[in-house]
Every structure is written in C-alpha cells, then in structure tokens.
C-alpha cells in the first residue's frame, strides 16, 4: 500500500476508533447517569407517596384511596398508579376499568431497594416502563402493595426520536474527517513520492544511485529532494570520469611497461591468435609496427622458421616451455618460448594465454663456453694427475725400473705436480677475477731481471717446437717498475706461451720491450696461425676459445688471456692485439711506468 493510503487509513482508523470509543464512553456514562437519576427520583417519589396512601388506606375508604391514587398520578405524571390488596386484586387504579381485576406480574429487570421493588419492562407498545412496588404496611396491618409506573427515560428512545437530527449532526464531523484525510494526503504527497523511490532502491539488488529521480511537486521538501538527486547524479558522473581517467592511465602505464621489457610478451586466445603484442615481440620477429599485421594471426606462424614447422607445433603443443632456434639473416638465435594461462579476476577458467619470448642466445653461448671450459679444465686436471699416479705406481713396483729410469720417473712426477699446481693457481686467479677480488701487491721490480726470468720459463716450449725466439731489450737500463711482479710475469708468460702454442714448428716468436714516454711497452709477435677478425673482440672474454680446429687441437682453458687482461687492467695498463689469420699475431702490453709513485 502506498504511504499516503497507509497514512489515510491509519488516520481514519485511529481517529474514528478513538472517536467512537469516546462516543460510546460518553453515551454509556450519560445512560448510567440518567438511569441513576431517574431511579433516585422514582424512589423519592415512592417514598413520599407511600405514607399518603397508607393514611388513605387506614381510612378504609375506597373512594378516598382512589382519589389519592389519582392525585398521585397527576402529581407525579405517572403512566399509571394502583394499589393491590394482598390477594392481588386492584383496589385502586388510575386506568379505567381495572378495578377488581387481578394484577399481572410484569416480567422484566427486577431490583429491590429496601422493601421497594422495581421492575423495568417494555409494554405492548414497546415503551420502557419502570414500575415501583412498595408494600402498604402500618403496624401490623398489611393493606397490600402500592404500584407506581413511570415511563423509563432511555437514551435509545431519545435517539430513535431524534434519528434524523442525529444523522444531520454526524454529517459535520464526517466532513471534517474527510477534509482531514485530504489535507494530510496533500501535505505528504512529496514524502510519498520520495518513499516510493526509496522502497524501489531497496528492492533492486545492484541499485545505481544515479537512478534516483527528481519529483514534480513543489515545496521545500520536494526541492530539497531534487537537489539531493541532482547532487547524486553529478557525483556519479564525476566518479565515472575519475574511473575512466584512472583506467586510461593504468592502461597507458601497462603498455609502457610492456613495451619497455626486453622479452616479447604476447596475449593470444585459446586458438593461439594474437590479441596483443609488445614492442619486443615485434623486434624479435622483425615485424613493422605500423603494419600491425600480427593482430588476428596465429603466433605459431611467426615462431616458425624455415624447416622446423612440425617440430614447432609439436613442441609447443606438448610443452609450456620450449627452446627453439631461429635463423634471421645468417645469425642463429635461440629463443625460449613460454606459455602461461591468463588468470581472470573471478578465478574462472580463462581461455587466453600469455606468451613470453626471451632471446637466450647469449645465455646458451655462455653455457656452451662454460661446458667447453669444464671439459678443458677436467682434462687439464686429470692429465697431470693420471701421470703422477701412473708413475708413482710404477715406481713402487721396483722390478720394473732401473735406477736411471727411477730418477726420470721421480722428476716426471715432480714436474707434473708443478703443472697441476700452476693450473690450479690459474683457476683460482680466474675465480678471483670473477669475484672482483683479484688484488695486486706492487713492489719495485727491475724489468731486466723480470724479463730474464720470464724468458727462461718459456724457452723450453720454444725449443720443443723449434721456434726462433728473439728478445729485444733496449740498450739503456730500463727503469724499475712499481708493479706486482708475479702477476705481470703470469701475464707475459701467458702471451709468450700462447705464441709458442699456436705457432707451428719452425716459426718465430719476437719479444720486444720499449720505453715510450711514460709507458713501458712489451710486445710478443709470432708467425703463428693468427686470429680471425670477428674473434678479436671476444679474445679476452673468459672461457673464450676459437672454434678453429687448429686452436681446438691445442689444450687450453680460454682463461689465459682473460686473466692477463685483468692483471694489466688492474695495473692501469692495456693490452692490444693485431692479427692476420694464417699469418700471425702481435700482442702488445702498455704499462704506465710508475716507480713508487702514489704509494
């Protein structure tokens, strides 16, 4: 039910019920009041009348009695008055023709007031009559009963008689009530309209606050509501604007982030059709951005490279991470392709996939080099070790060897142990270089002596390969250098050792030491196998070894040049390389000629 109806009904109900209750109350008390009053009157009347009649009875005069009763009738305006004797016969009656007849006992409501009895009843004409009966007793003489009947005034009779007036009289309050309902309804009309909207908002599950409407009534309440609604609407609009702006910003941010990543990121549907791809992806697969030809195509098309189509499909179908080689131009790249399921916010199974494509060529290369290094290192460690063990064991079996042989064997064990130790030193140095903790401890070093020691160290390897070994030191005595003697020695020995290793039999190695302004320049030049132009930049990389067969045939760990380079760098110097493949190489070390400076 609408509010206005409810209020109208409540109003009518309470007012009417209240009024009716009030009316009934008033009615009832009036009724009570009237009846009590009339009873009292009647009793008084009977009380007065009884002695008078008694006196008349004592006279034993029937006519006198009759007159007395008549007199009473007139005085008190009775309906009728009578006296009955003890046998119940009328001996006096104000109604004609009743004398001598038997008195009827009327049926009705009986009451006694002392010895006065009252009966209230209705006669044939439906008039309410109240009969008062008092015993006529004087001393021991009982003459009978005095009966006086009056019309019982009841409200009902009044009402009945004034029916028409009452109806007209009720019209006025009814009209007031009606007017009241209308006034109330009018004044609460805006509230009802508001209440309607509020109820509606309560009934709908996802109520949008901008759905509140303005109302068409006038007045302060209606105006106030309309203002409120307008405010809500504006609020919602500006909220929406803010939300849009935030979303826009986030999207832009997200795209910026995606395009800044080095890995390719692609979003596809369950059929691998591209929905979104970042800049890195376009780069990797050399797709021009303006063409935007990737949207709508399957990502598999791009991943495929000539010749491995089925492999790609199979690999991608069965694994969520695959590594594939891809040729672009004449360079081969290795790509790591991973597929992930896209997570939806409501945790439902989503069909979209996110692909990440990383270029792991460098990593693969590093791994390959590391594996090669490990191979080399293992070999370099096991070889002297095997020799030591074999020689020692053989030595122990004394029958096998003669004294000369025993000596020879012991020497071999010694030199193999030294070789092993040196290699382990190299390994440790390299690991220090790795950790950045290779330290140099400088001391004053005479270059001449240094060179002499170095030359003695490397001479055997030169001799073994029949190499022409030339040392060119300047005429002047070289200044002493403030350097880490051992480490510099390692670097120089390394360069010369390489020269010897990679120069075929009968070749030549030239070592030169020069003083150039404030630098000392050492150079080692050979007529060896040389270095390819594209390998020179990588020469000083850790573990780097040329793929060239001639190099691979020699044992080496790829650490020597890296170590030498680091040592020279720590001294503030540099190493340069000039080389021609097939003709030879020249390595030059430039060292600042410091002597106990900046100590």
């Amino acid at each position, binding site marked *: 039910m609408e509010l206005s109806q409810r209020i109208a009904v409540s109003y009518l109900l309470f007012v009417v019920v209240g009024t009716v209750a009030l009316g009934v109350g008033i009615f009832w008390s009036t009724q009570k009041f009237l009846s009590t009053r009339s009873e009292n009157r009647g009793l008084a009347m009977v009380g007065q009348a009884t002695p008078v009649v008694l006196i008349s009875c004592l006279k034993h005069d029937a006519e006198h009695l009759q007159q007395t009763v008549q007199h009473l009738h007139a005085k008190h305006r009775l309906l009728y008055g009578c006296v009955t004797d003890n046998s119940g016969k009328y001996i006096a009656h104000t109604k004609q023709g009743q004398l001598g007849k038997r008195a009827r006992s009327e049926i009705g409501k009986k009451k006694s007031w002392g010895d006065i009895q009252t009966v209230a009843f209705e006669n044939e004409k439906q008039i309410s009559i109240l009969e008062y009966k008092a015993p006529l007793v004087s001393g021991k003489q009982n003459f009978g009963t005095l009966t006086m009947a009056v019309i019982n005034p009841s409200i009902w009779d009044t009402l009945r008689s004034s029916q028409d007036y009452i109806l007209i009289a009720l019209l006025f309050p009814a009209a007031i009530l009606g007017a009241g309902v209308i006034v109330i309804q009018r004044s609460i009309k805006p509230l009802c309209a508001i209440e309607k909207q509020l109820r509606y908002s309560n009934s709908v599950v996802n109520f949008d606050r901008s759905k509140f409407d303005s109302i068409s009534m006038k007045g302060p309440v209606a105006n106030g509501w309309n203002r409120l609604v307008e405010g809500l609407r504006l609020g919602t609009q500006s909220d929406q604007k803010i939300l849009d702006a935030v979303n826009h910003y986030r999207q832009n941010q997200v795209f910026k982030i995606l395009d800044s990543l080095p890995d390719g990121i692609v979003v596809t549907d369950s059929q691998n059709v591209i929905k979104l791809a970042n800049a890195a992806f376009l780069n990797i697969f050399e797709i021009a951005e303006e063409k935007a030809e990737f949207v709508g195509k399957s990502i598999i098309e791009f991943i495929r490279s000539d010749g491995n189509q089925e492999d790609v499909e199979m690999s991608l179908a069965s694994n969520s991470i695959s590594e594939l080689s891809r040729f672009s131009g004449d360079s081969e790249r290795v790509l790591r392709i991973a597929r992930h399921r896209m997570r939806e916010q409501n945790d439902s199974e989503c069909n979209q996939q996110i692909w990440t494509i990383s270029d792991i060529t460098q990593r693969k290369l590093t791994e390959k080099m590391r594996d090669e290094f490990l191979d080399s290192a293992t070999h370099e460690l096991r070889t002297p*070790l095997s020799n030591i*063990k074999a020689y020692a064991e*053989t030595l122990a079996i004394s029958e096998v060897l003669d004294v000369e042989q025993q000596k020879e064997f012991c020497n071999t064990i010694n030199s193999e142990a030294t070789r092993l130790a040196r290699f382990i030193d190299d390994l440790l140095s390299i690991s220090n270089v790795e950790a950045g903790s290779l330290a140099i401890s400088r001391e004053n070093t005479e270059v001449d002596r240094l060179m002499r020691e170095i030359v003695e160290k490397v001479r055997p390897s030169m001799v073994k390969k029949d190499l022409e070994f030339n040392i060119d030191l300047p005429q002047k005595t070289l200044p002493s250098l403030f350097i880490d003697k051992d480490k510099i020695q390692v670097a120089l020995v390394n360069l010369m050792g390489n020269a010897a290793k990679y120069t075929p039999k009968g070749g030549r190695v030239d070592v030169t030491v020069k003083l150039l302004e404030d630098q000392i320049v050492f150079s080692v030049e050979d007529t060896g196998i040389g270095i390819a132009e594209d390998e020179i930049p990588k020469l000083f990389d850790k573990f780097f070894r040329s793929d060239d067969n001639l190099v691979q045939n020699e044992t080496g760990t790829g650490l020597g040049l890296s170590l030498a380079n680091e040592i020279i760098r720590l001294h503030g110097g540099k190493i340069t390389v000039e080389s021609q493949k097939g003709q030879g190489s020249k390595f030059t070390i430039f060292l600042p000629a410091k002597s106990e400076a900046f100590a």
Partner: protein
Amino acid sequence: MSKPKPQILVVEDNRAMARVISVVLESAGYRVTVAFDGEAGWTEATNENFDLIITDQQMPKLNGVDLCRRLRSHDQYKSTPIFMLTAKGLELDLTALKDELGISEVFGKPFSPSMITKYVEQCFVESAVFSS
C-alpha cells in the same frame, strides 16, 4: 720356436703418459710402438701389424673414437682388440663404444698401469686360446 712377442700400438698425445705405459708394457715383455696423435697412430697402424691397440680419446688431429672407426673399417684391424684411455670417464657413452666399435676395455684417467698390463695379458691369453 717361441712365439714372437705381441706388438702393441699406444696412441697417446701426452708424452709422459705414453712413456710410462710403454715402459710398463715393455717390461712385461711386449713390443711397444708409440704415436702422439690420431693421424700418426693411423700411419703406424697401417705400416705395421699390431696385435693390440691402446689409444687415448682426446687427441689433436684425430681423436680416439674416430681412429677406432677407421681401424674397424680396415680389414687388418676389423677384430683386433682395442683399449681406450679417457679423461672423460663417465661422460662417454660406454655401451656405444663397446657395442659399436668393439672396444674391449675402457680405462678412465687416472688409471693404474699395472691394471692395464693385467688386462693386456688376459686379452692375449684369450686370443691364444681361440687361435689354438
């Protein structure tokens, strides 16, 4: 007439290792020839007739496995016993070596020369049994 001592070819690029093996084998009564790389080993093998070949795996020019392949494709060495020395140890696919190339024994470095001698002797005993 005493049988001629069996001739063994040792192909090993590490001079010291080659030396100790040949010393030990020679003192056990065998004739030993040494080659210092795969190619040289092949040359020697084709020049003479060897009853056993002991070869290292990692060598310049021609590695041990390739040398074996070559030997096996040669009539002369189709079924000659071959031992392999290797620093790779467990990394090599031993079953492939044994099945495919018929390499009788593989010794991982470091090894004991006397152990090799024992296997060599065993090898010749077996072949003697078969030949007689």
